């Protein structure tokens, strides 16, 4: 059947029961269906791949409107009309309403064949990315920059996995090489490619198809990956009893069992859960302290700053309010990063629907979207529009920024920091730029921001990958590779003067802490301190 999201966890959307909870109800409004194909709300700019016909348009130029109410019917007829197809087609399956799509239902494919983008429609609505192979020159920069290929001889590398595998693909075959599950989705290859081959889109889609069609659904690996991918679900449970959870998850015998049964390496410490989540704090605080219809930002905190490091979120709020911004905290779910990395595209899409809807609404109210986690901002900016065709998704991508990046664009950070006069006691940091920051061109922003601040010594520990890549390092079979990849960073950290680590990415932070025992901070925390905000 077509993949319409059953909102099985709608109730636990962040903010379901706080100040902005009433927005939740908005989703029930007619014309704003969860499939994201309804009428745009007033003030919501119209954009998005779903609305742009990308194929040859008749001279008359009119593209028939997708009929929202009829999509289920259309899907059904789609299924029927393909059932009795000619025997002459050589058994090639066409896009039918009857199969599921690994992308999580590019619904428009079933909606109206006149309006869809051909890229969207391999059978079952999977993306056809063969065209992306056209841009590849075989220069091999991608392979050279892949941290997994460097340590894992079995991994064929991004060039094979992306352009080559896709070019060899046929419409009717679904086999994706299993090595796709070894890719950590660090996206360094995507950044390295001089020719804009959509590598990460290719990996994400292939992984989605692989998991959907070829992975044993009851395997321990699948279940473990699904749990890792749905970190938000576990974290929201754990944070109800934060102390017990932090203790129990790291309790020896429990860890031993986790490794044996679930394949989660016992060497890893589970992150601690905060006793008060960011959203609880926000609610208790009474929301924003500054109201300013000219300067608004919608904060996408993601799961980690909410459940584990609310201090990052708090730092963000105080820095932004310092600059006179009205901070909004719309309801939100997981950004999807861990789900992409595990091929759980259906899950990611479900969460994306909530995120896109609420963030687009905030954009309609004049806000830009900022994230404190570089993977979250990358996901909203790049992976969302590459993989899903939700209404407004392109708009969201255009309006999303990383939090420090945004301030560097719009505020005179240097001047403010200068005026604030620096830190009282000198502090030294070993800074690691997350791969996903690199992908957004942000790998030097922390160093550049703080290098002239009195009392701050910041050393970049180099451009290697930390090796954890979200959930990659959380898998027992990948643990050693993960540490091997991270070795260079650990060594450089030890070598650096600072005894405190710094990075924007929460999982990089875990790895940095795990490898060196250092305490790790987020640049926003230092900014808060330096600005006396």
């Amino acid at each position, binding site marked *: 059947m077509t993949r319409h999201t059953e909102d099985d966890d709608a109730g636990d959307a962040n903010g379901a029961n706080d100040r902005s909870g009433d927005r939740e109800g908005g989703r029930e409004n007619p014309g704003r269906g969860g499939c994201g194909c309804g009428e745009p709300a007033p003030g919501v700019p119209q954009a998005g791949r779903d609305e742009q016909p990308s194929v040859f*348009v008749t001279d008359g130029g009119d593209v028939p409107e997708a009929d929202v109410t009829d999509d289920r019917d259309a899907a059904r007829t789609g299924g029927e009309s393909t059932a009795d197809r000619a025997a002459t087609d*050589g058994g*090639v399956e066409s896009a039918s309403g009857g199969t599921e799509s690994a992308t999580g239902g590019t619904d428009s494919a079933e909606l109206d064949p006149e309006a*869809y983008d051909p890229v969207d429609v391999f059978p079952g609505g999977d993306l056809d990315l063969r065209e992306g192979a*056209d841009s590849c020159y*075989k*220069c091999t920069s991608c392979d050279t920059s892949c941290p997994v290929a460097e340590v894992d001889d079995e991994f064929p590398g991004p060039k094979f996995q992306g352009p*080559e595998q896709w070019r060899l693909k046929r419409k009717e075959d679904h086999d994706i090489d299993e*090595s796709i599950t070894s890719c950590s989705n660090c996206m360094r290859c995507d950044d390295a490619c001089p*020719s804009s081959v959509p590598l990460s889109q290719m990996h994400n889609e292939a992984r989605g198809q692989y998991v959907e069609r070829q992975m044993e659904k009851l395997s321990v690996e699948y279940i473990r990956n699904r749990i890792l991918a749905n970190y938000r679900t576990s974290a929201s449970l754990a944070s109800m009893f934060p102390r017990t959870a932090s203790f129990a998850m790291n309790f020896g015998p429990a860890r031993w069992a986790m490794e044996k049964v679930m394949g989660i390496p016992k060497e890893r410490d589970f992150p601690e859960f905060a006793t008060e989540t960011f959203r609880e704090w926000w609610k208790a605080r009474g929301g924003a302290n500054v109201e300013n219809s000219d300067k608004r930002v919608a904060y996408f905190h993601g799961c980690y700053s909410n459940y584990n490091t609310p201090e990052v979120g708090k730092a963000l709020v105080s820095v932004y309010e310092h600059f006179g911004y009205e901070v909004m905290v719309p309801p939100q779910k997981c950004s999807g990063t861990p789900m992409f990395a595990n091929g759980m595209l259906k899950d990611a899409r479900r969460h994306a629907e909530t995120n896109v809807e609420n963030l687009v609404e905030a954009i309609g109210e004049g806000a830009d979207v900022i994230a404190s986690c570089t993977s979250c901002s990358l996901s909203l900016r790049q992976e969302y529009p590459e993989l899903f065709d939700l209404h407004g998704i392109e708009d969201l991508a255009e309006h999303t920024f990383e939090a420090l990046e945004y301030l560097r664009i719009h505020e005179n950070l240097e001047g403010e920091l200068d005026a604030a006069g620096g830190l009282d006691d000198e502090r030294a940091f070993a800074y690691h730029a997350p791969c996903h920051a690199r992908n957004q061109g942000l790998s030097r922003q922390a160093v550049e921001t703080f290098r002239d601040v009195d009392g701050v010594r910041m050393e970049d520990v180099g451009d290697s990958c930390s090796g954890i890549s979200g959930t990659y390092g959380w898998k027992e079979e990948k643990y050693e590779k993960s540490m091997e990849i991270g070795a260079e960073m650990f060594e450089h950290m030890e070598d650096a003067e600072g005894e405190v680590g710094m990075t924007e990415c929460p999982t990089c932070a875990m790895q940095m802490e795990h490898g060196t025992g250092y305490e790790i901070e987020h640049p926003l925390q230092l900014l808060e301190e330096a600005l006396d905000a």
Partner: protein
Amino acid sequence: MDRQVDVVVVGGGSTGCGVVRDLARRGLDTVLVEKGNLTHGTTGRMHGLLHSGGRYAVSDQKSAKECIEENMVLRDIAAHCVEETGGLFVKRPEDSEEYFQEKLEGCKACDIPVEVIDGEEARRREPYLARDVEKAIALPDGAVDPFRLCVSNAADAREHGARIETHAPVTDVLVEDGEVVGVEIEHETGPGKRVHHEPGTTEEIRARHVVNATGAWAGNVGGMAGVDVEVRPSKGVMTVMNTRQVDTVINRCRPKGDADIIVPHETACILGTTDEEVDDPEDYPEEDWEVDLMIETLSELVPALEDARTLRSFWGVRPLYEPPGTGTEDPTDITRDYFLLDHGDRDDLPGMTTIVGGKLTTYRMMAESISDHVCEALGYEATCDTADAPLPGSESEARMAELMDEFGLRSPVARRSGQRLGSRADDVLDEYDPNPIVCNCESVTRAEVQDAIGEAGSDLNAVRLRTRASMGNCQGGFCTHRIAAELAEEYPEPVVRDAEDELYQERWKGQRHALWGEQLSQAMLNHLLHATTMNRDGDPASLDGEVDFGAFDAGPESPDAADTDESGSAGTAAADGGRADDDAATDGGR
């Protein structure tokens, strides 16, 4: 060498290969001689459409009926050469409705199974079709790999006792007492040719009957025997796209015209074609407007073609024939039927038969009819079984899943090798472990390359045709040297170098017609890589000399080797830009 064989077949295209297989299976002692490698002629430069007959359903129903019959036969006997893609005849608003109906009726009259679908359904099957395509006729067109088809036919013939002689042009037809008694061939020498017979020698092959299956060249061979064969060669262009925009054959439903078909072929799509009479099948202009026309006109059917990457273009010549005195003006009006010319009846020269015209799709039927004719001439009784006997390689589906496990191949690689090798996959892949990929773009492994070398010798173009190695994005930029390296164990260095050069040149030849956008960048990257690492930009006049390997790697012969650290830098290449300081003196900055 005075032994007499029953039949010499001249020409290793689809027709000749079909004939030699048929005769060998009937038990005749047969030799095939071909001046290049198999498929050197038109067969290697065609579209790869396994006709359903739809294209001829209005203009030439006899051909259409033959096509659908043979189409079904080939799906059975040559499964590993055929991809059952299905085909569509699509109608745009400006195309005539009347013709659409005529086409439909024509197909029905010829027993071609058809189904009319609306534009929406057509786009459901082929999402890249233009939005204003109104409707389409679906029919069983397919894609056929001419190389594999010919090679399988030749292999089967050899298994039945035939001799297959490639790189051996016929230089004379022997006529004695008013009768053809054999041919003279020359064993070619030169770069990359199969080192097989003594190069440069000639050989007379005496035969009771000679079959001239040289297609567009039939006039030349006829001339050697002193008879006139009026072939009117007509050229057509084909443009190869880097990826498959469509997975079914797309035909434009209109009477006749250039640029009206897209055939998905392996990893690529091939656009075609034109139809222009030329004087010489070897030497005719390859014109840019023809390529532009393909892309422009076919974009009306599949708009994505406009911006998609083009790998290369190539041309082929149709061996069109018409009986003397017909005088058709426009080559597109010349019949696509084939003709069997018995020179005994026709020119009073017994002992030779010429077969010209026709299509690859109907090659087996043509072969059957000429074999019947030859048997009759020789007074030999045997029945033809080629419509039922599967070709080597197609007996059973390759066991894809097992191939992956057994030979450690990644799935798309296993799938593609399985498709190329058919039921031979096990035997071939079994030979090599480890079995690295030699050509990345097309996923061709060492085992397959070595297997092809075993069959084709040092001719790397023949290896390419068998395996598809060097036929992807990079057009050999990243693999010609790796493929050549596979020769190194068996062949001396100059043969290997020449073979590599020849393959690299061949790849460049086709790319000249795609030098814009991505392929231009690719060609430039390839050139510079080869220039810096293999001296490809050197002065041709000085390239022929012996390579002074000592000057490159500071090996034991090098004067400096004595004071070089034995284990360390001894293998450093000159191309490293002088990084290894020990080598600075020997690399000479070249």
